[in-house]
């Protein structure tokens, strides 16, 4: 029999995670993969970019995660006239106290939904992206730490829509994952059409986790065992992306780190403490899809196609 490197609290965590996934599945119908990826992204302490058409449930997903994980939640609607101060907050003179007080902006919450991020000007975008990277905000020379955990879900309309400022590659790189929701399948859509309003259902949900449990889970991601064999595989993938003529540029070492971190979170989410090649394959499209470009521009769906090509081209060593 297998000799398990036993740890009882792992089993408890597994139960919590299972419940989390199940509960979420009742609200977001037929989107289990996207949901699990979003959870993995959160566990891996990364930020999530959802790219899809309006009305497929991006906001609901963000809301749902905040609710289930017991995080406080703020939504920022990005528009072309949005200013950086509208995101991070500003200093206001308090006449009674005779001093300047900092009024924190909506970014000071545990889960921020940045809706339609590519509608804002690059200046406003970069204010948020800096906060994501530094985990703090600096206004008038004073740094204010952001709450923990800090998790940004940004949504983006497909780039070719009018009036958008597409995120440059270096900014895209700040997001651990990019997922696409897509249309629901017909059965899920029927349920959606016949069922209750999703927003009402959301309000009825109870958090599955408290913040300590969430942090404990995030810490456990680091404990997932990574064997030499999996590292070999990971490196083979990176090397292939750099040598194959299909890709315009190979994956960066940062992309490699992101891939490994997401895969570990995915393994944990599946209740395992050992990383398998399948975990890497599962998160690969979401993790590297927005970091890869083909030499021949194929336009839409490029990331997914390239990721599938990458997976199918590299044998597992």
């Amino acid at each position: 029999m297998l000799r398990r490197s036993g740890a009882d609290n792992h089993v408890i965590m597994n139960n919590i995670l299972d419940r989390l996934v199940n509960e979420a599945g009742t609200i977001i119908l037929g989107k289990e993969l996207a949901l699990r990826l979003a959870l993995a992204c959160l566990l891996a302490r990364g930020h999530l970019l959802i790219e899809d058409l309006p009305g497929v449930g991006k906001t609901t997903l963000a809301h749902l995660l905040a609710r289930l994980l017991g995080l406080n939640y703020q939504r920022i609607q990005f528009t072309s006239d949005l200013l950086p101060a509208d995101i991070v907050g500003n200093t206001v003179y308090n006449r009674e106290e005779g001093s300047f007080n900092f009024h924190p902006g909506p970014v000071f919450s545990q889960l921020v939904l940045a809706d339609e991020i590519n509608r804002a000007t690059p200046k406003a975008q970069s204010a948020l992206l800096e906060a994501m990277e530094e985990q703090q905000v600096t206004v008038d020379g004073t740094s204010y730490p952001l709450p923990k955990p800090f998790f940004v879900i940004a949504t983006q309309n497909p780039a070719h829509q009018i009036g958008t400022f597409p995120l440059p590659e270096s900014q895209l790189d700040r997001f651990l994952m990019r997922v696409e929701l897509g249309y629901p399948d017909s059965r899920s859509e029927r349920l959606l059409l016949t069922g209750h309003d999703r927003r009402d259902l959301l309000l009825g949900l109870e958090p599955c986790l408290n913040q300590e449990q969430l942090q404990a889970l995030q810490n456990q991601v680091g404990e997932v065992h990574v064997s030499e064999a999996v590292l070999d595989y990971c490196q083979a993938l990176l090397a292939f992306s750099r040598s194959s003529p299909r890709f315009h540029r190979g994956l960066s070492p940062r992309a490699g780190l992101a891939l490994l971190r997401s895969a570990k979170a995915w393994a944990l989410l599946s209740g395992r403490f050992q990383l398998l090649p399948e975990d890497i394959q599962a998160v690969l499209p979401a993790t590297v899809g927005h970091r890869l470009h083909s030499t021949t521009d194929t336009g839409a769906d490029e990331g997914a196609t390239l990721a599938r090509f990458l997976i199918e081209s590299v044998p597992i060593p």
Partner: protein
Amino acid sequence: MNSPSRTPLPRLQQYALIALLTLTALPHVLNIDFRISAFFLVLVGYRTLAVEKTALLPNRLLLFLITLGALGMVMMRYPILFGRDAGVALLIAMLALKLIEMRVRRDVHILVFIGYFMLATQFLYRDQIWLVGYAMVLVAALTAMLVESSRNAPSVSLFRSMGVSLLLLSQALPVMILLFIFFPRFSSPLWHLAADTDHAVIGVSGNISPGSISHLSRSSAVAFRVDFEGEIPPPEQRYWRGPVFWFTDGVNWRVDKDDDLAAAELISLGPTIAYNVTLEPTPGSWLYALELAVDIPGDSQLRSDYQLIRNTPIKQRIRYRVGSVIDYRSGALGMAERQKGLQLPPGITPRMLDLVTRWQQQSDSDAELVLKALDYFRQQEFYYTLYPPPLGENPPDQFLFDTRRGFCEHYATSFTLLMRIAGIPSRVVGGYQGGQINPLGKYLIVRQSDAHAWAEVWLRGKGWQRIDPTIAVAPERIEQSIDPTLISDVIGAPIRFIEVKGGVLGSALRQLRWGADAINASWHRWVLGYSKERQLYLMQLLGIGFMHGPKLAYGMVAITGLCVILLSLILLYRVRVKRDPVYAVYLSFCRRLQRRGIVRMAHEGPRDFASRVIAAHPELRNRVARITGLYIGIRYGQLDNKPNRRQFKRLVRRFNP
């Protein structure tokens, strides 16, 4: 729209391709009609200009018209498009047109293969070693272009592709050697390609007249090379016997073609000298051998006058082994031979008769008379020259008494004539004399400039004796070779002989020349001389003498195939040793499942594979799950220990679905 094979070519590659392909065709320029060569060069020049100015490139219609024009030109010069020259001309014209058409990467592939083919056609004209070196360099460069064109982005320097190309070609080298050794040889040339090379052949022929050998002596072309098995004999013994001339009309001397008697018995008085001759193509069928040959090659006969004649014409370079004796005594003289040896042409003048009568009165024997005649040549004012003054209607008479300037054939023929007047049976022998020793290869080079003629007289008690009247006039002719580069064409000018020049430069130059000839000689000996017979001999040495003809061809395929398989196995093994042993066991597990029709894809993870197997064959569920679980634990988890590995191996070994 922008598929890789349609990407435009970078300029550097265009220049490189134009240069390389011009070089592949360049040696042909002299072989084919000058108009086609000119067409080629003009088009190539134009294409080079068009690299910078693409607007110069003609459109499709114009290109089509040029193509028609080129085809017409080739057809005009070679009306029936058949044969070597016509084919090469067409190929060159088409290469030029394809170069004009070169635009995208796909064209590189076509052009490179035309280049390979063009290089192969060079060997239809010549087979010198320099051409092999030239072709090899070009093949490597062309392959580099092929490597370069398969790259995603052009590399910084073409030399990087050259490195890959050299690596590839060196990997192909063993296969090349195997094919060379085992490819069945034919005794006749393939496709009769040598058939139209006759015009270039020079050498001693079956007819001599005053001036025919001196004409030959102006060429420094190699007649043959000789490797002696023992010591090389001194120059005065190196008379290479060729045709024997019996009949004369006073001007021309010719061989006795009707004589097909075998050689008379010969009493040898010394040891036999054995040697191998590599003979260049010659006009006749004479195999040159030291006087006189006793051990002769299988496909030849020794005639009664000791001419060594091959059964088939010598249209290609051949190699043969001969044994000769320097000291010999020939037997008695037959009636027919005496008659032939005393045949006199019309036009014997009273002056000649007087001369001979005077000698006869002064001497007691034939031998003494011969000496008297030689003294005559020595004491009178005779000169040895390559440009004798023109002779009138009776050349022997005029030469003996008026001009007295001549080359070896003048002396040999007039001496023979005088001997016949005196009643001594005699004949003229043609061939070569001397030759230079290459100190680097320890072999002898005999050139056309060593062509010579001498006389033979029959003396009672001694048989046929060689008498070289040229020695009487120019003794240094025998010790040294004529230097064809120093011939002065002033009539009657004295001949300069090859002298050892002093100075560092002179000696370095000489070393270089000897070195080049030594390389050439080994090339002829080991590569071009690898004939059917030698192949058979080698096969016998290898103990596979039974392989010849079609069997050898099959053998060649088998051996080459074996070699390739062996090499790939070595490469495969080198990849394999790096593998984790646990992974190897897992692969064996996958192979066992393959028998059930489930093939694991290379990128399929163990868990995914297991679920697929279980879905297809639920009955295997427990065993597959157990093996996969153990594998994952060992390879990806922290359960890599000996008992687990052993158990994993055992489970897989017992797993026989």
